[in-house]
């Protein structure tokens, strides 16, 4: 495991419990989606893994080292939900700074590759203050990738992006998985998580309420059959029952024009879990 979180809790001074005994694992080369409503504790979890926030209890281990230690921080890349780069610096200078801070030996070639990867190849000399929010977010993603970290912690990486930008980020995530890098992706965009993540963890009020593979979480909702008399829904029926349902309808003299097996979406699972 590149990230092992056990019994993690965080209680702020004001008495607010942000996390209450959370367990999360991210395996080598795995893409895990972290879902939950606002205030569920997702960002706190990510920040503890980065060493930005001190836990009240439990443990978080990154690449075999306690979260927050130099070894752990050297193994991860982080894109904060709210971040800013110095407006006076160019995209290339931002990456150069993070190369020096992370000890990356990639030099200009790595910077050019990363900027190209996030679609900022043409904007490498452009000052951050002249970039759009979306461009800055893509630059943030490139920054997180400096030094080819084993684990990426991405907190809402597409919140400022247009649909084209979101697709680009999805492609980057797929590419990262191909390279064997692990990602913990905190996002509100369920469709995004569903499309790229190997596993999903849903957090609500500081606790994990559901976890699993997106396809496993989606349960059968029934079989919908289009007949001459109209559309009929056989609630709770599974895919395996569709032939029998159709046979029974035909035997009863119904004319069947179409059959659709219904499954709950990740959105259904999410809404049910956090309600």
């Amino acid at each position, binding site marked *: 495991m590149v990230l092992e979180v056990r019994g993690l809790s965080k209680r*702020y001074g004001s008495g607010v419990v942000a996390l209450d005994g959370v367990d999360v694992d991210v395996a080598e080369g795995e893409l895990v989606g972290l879902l939950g409503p606002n205030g569920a504790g997702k960002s706190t979890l990510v*920040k503890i893994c*980065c*060493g*930005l*926030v*001190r836990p009240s209890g439990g443990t978080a281990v990154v690449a075999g080292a306690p979260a927050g230690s*130099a*070894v752990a*921080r*050297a193994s*991860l890349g*982080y*894109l*904060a939900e*709210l*971040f*800013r*780069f*110095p407006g*006076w*610096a160019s995209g290339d200078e931002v990456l150069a*700074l*993070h190369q*020096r*801070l*992370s*000890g990356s030996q990639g030099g200009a070639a790595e910077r050019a590759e990363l900027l190209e990867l996030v679609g900022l190849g043409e904007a490498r000399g452009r000052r951050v203050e002249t970039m759009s929010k979306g461009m800055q977010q893509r630059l*943030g993603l490139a*920054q997180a990738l400096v030094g080819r970290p084993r684990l990426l912690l991405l907190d809402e990486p597409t919140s400022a992006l247009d649909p084209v930008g979101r697709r680009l980020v999805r492609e980057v995530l797929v590419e990262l998985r191909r390279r064997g890098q692990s990602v913990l992706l905190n996002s509100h965009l369920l469709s995004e998580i569903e499309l790229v993540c190997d596993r999903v963890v849903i957090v609500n009020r500081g606790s994990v309420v559901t976890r699993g593979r997106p396809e496993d979480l989606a349960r059968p909702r029934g079989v919908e059959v289009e007949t001459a008399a109209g559309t009929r829904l056989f609630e709770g029926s599974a895919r395996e029952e569709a032939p029998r349902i159709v046979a029974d309808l035909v035997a009863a003299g119904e004319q069947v024009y179409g059959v659709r097996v219904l499954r709950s979406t990740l959105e259904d699972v999410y809404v049910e879990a956090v309600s």
Partner: protein
Amino acid sequence: MSGALVVAQHAVRESLRRRVFVVVLVLSVVFLGLYTWGAAELFDDVDSFGGNEFGVEPDTLAGATILGLAMFAILFLGAVLATFLTIGAVRGDAERGLLQPVIVRPLGRFAYLAGRLLAAAAVSGAYVVALYGACVVVTGLLGWWPDRLVAPALCLAGAAVVVAALSLLGSAVLSTTANGIAVFMTLGAGLTAGLLGQIGEALDSRTLDRIADIGSWLLPFEALYQHGLSRLTADVEGTTAAIVNLGPFGGAQEASLALWPFAVAYVAAVVALTAWSFARRDL
């Protein structure tokens, strides 16, 4: 390159790119021009005094007073520079989202603080030394050289470093605006304590002396400044020395040998306190 040096280099580069140094340079040139003009007028005036029955050395009196005034202004400018380079180093940068991407890198929070202090100390220290040097040369060419050249420069640089350390500490616990107010009120309090000490010396008031002593220990930038001032006229004696010591900007108290070790320990303690506070802060 160590993380602290990378952070320091980045901070200096930011100042260069944001044209902080250009503004400082332009204002310093203006200050130097006004200083040269004022000093020239002053030396012309005292030359017309001629000899006097009290044994006062007019050039020494004029030079020590105007250079002392310049040291006060240089300390203020150095403090402004040191403060603005550190004023939002922790909470300010964290609130703006600038700090998190940097601090997550494996350099560590202490290295970050060390880098920010290093940059502020190097820039403000070098600035006060350069400006003081320019004022000394101007004063010397116009008619008076101070008794000690290096010690006042080092004292000014030390005072700027102390102010930078205090501002860095403030940045870990206060918002940027509150920190700016706190640092300049502290600076004012320190300098006021120094002035009270001089008044106490003149009036032979033990209470005022004690207030000044406590102020100097609590805020050693003031003691460093006063010691630097005293070195300007270290060898001046008699009536001239008495008059110079009466002036709020030209006079000063010589510090004990413990001043420099205490100032170093003080800065180390302030940095340690800042690091402790920063380490406990959730970002």
